[in-house]
């Protein structure tokens, strides 16, 4: 069964203090890895899709990278509005439609 593990579970940063969130996965033959942001009381909001090792994508203060075993979400000079839970997810290796297996998320809090 595909597994996705995210760390840390929670992270508290000061405004401007850069850091990275980790997502490790066990699915073989990775077809893609998704990052989502989820604010309290809302549904997950799509951020990035990464397809192959070495790929990087950026959006404002966020940069996602992918290796053969894990993905990182780097947050540069975060602001309080970046506070949210960040989820990563992977589709199955074969078949199974497009079912995503999600990690439990990293809850990020950015303080002034």
């Amino acid at each position, binding site marked *: 069964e595909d597994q996705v593990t995210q760390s840390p579970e929670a992270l508290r940063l000061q405004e401007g203090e850069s850091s990275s969130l980790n997502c490790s996965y066990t699915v073989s033959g990775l077809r893609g890895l*998704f990052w*989502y942001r989820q604010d309290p009381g809302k*549904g997950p909001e*799509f951020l990035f*899709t990464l397809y192959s090792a070495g790929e990087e994508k950026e959006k404002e203060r966020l940069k996602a990278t992918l290796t053969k075993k894990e993905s990182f979400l780097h947050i540069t000079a975060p602001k309080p509005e970046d506070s949210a839970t960040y989820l990563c997810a992977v*589709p199955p290796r074969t078949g199974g*439609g*497009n*079912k995503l297996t999600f*990690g439990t998320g990293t809850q990020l809090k950015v303080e002034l």
Partner: protein
Amino acid sequence: EAGVAQSPRYKIIEKRQSVAFWCNPISGHATLYWYQQILGQGPKLLIQFQNNGVVDDSQLPKDRFSAERLKGVDSTLKIQPAKLEDSAVYLCASSSGSFHIDTQYFGPGTRLTVL
């Protein structure tokens, strides 16, 4: 472009009662998903539709949960009878269904509390 719509946003029921949730996907999206998100966990897929056909319902508790997508557009998820452990957020998502790996776009969810 309008996003995925869900209703109601909140529902409180007693155990053994029934409840239904409604979802309207992004216009033109062929694939629709229902996920269950228990507090502190990531979403877990319950059922996936491609147009009005079921692609995957392997994790749907079929003794109490049912879902339909008539006419291949909006969908309804029903729980009958509800149990305490069904308390969760029920998320609907949709994707275009045109690509091998589709981006799924989520609605705001329905928060269900079973007392």
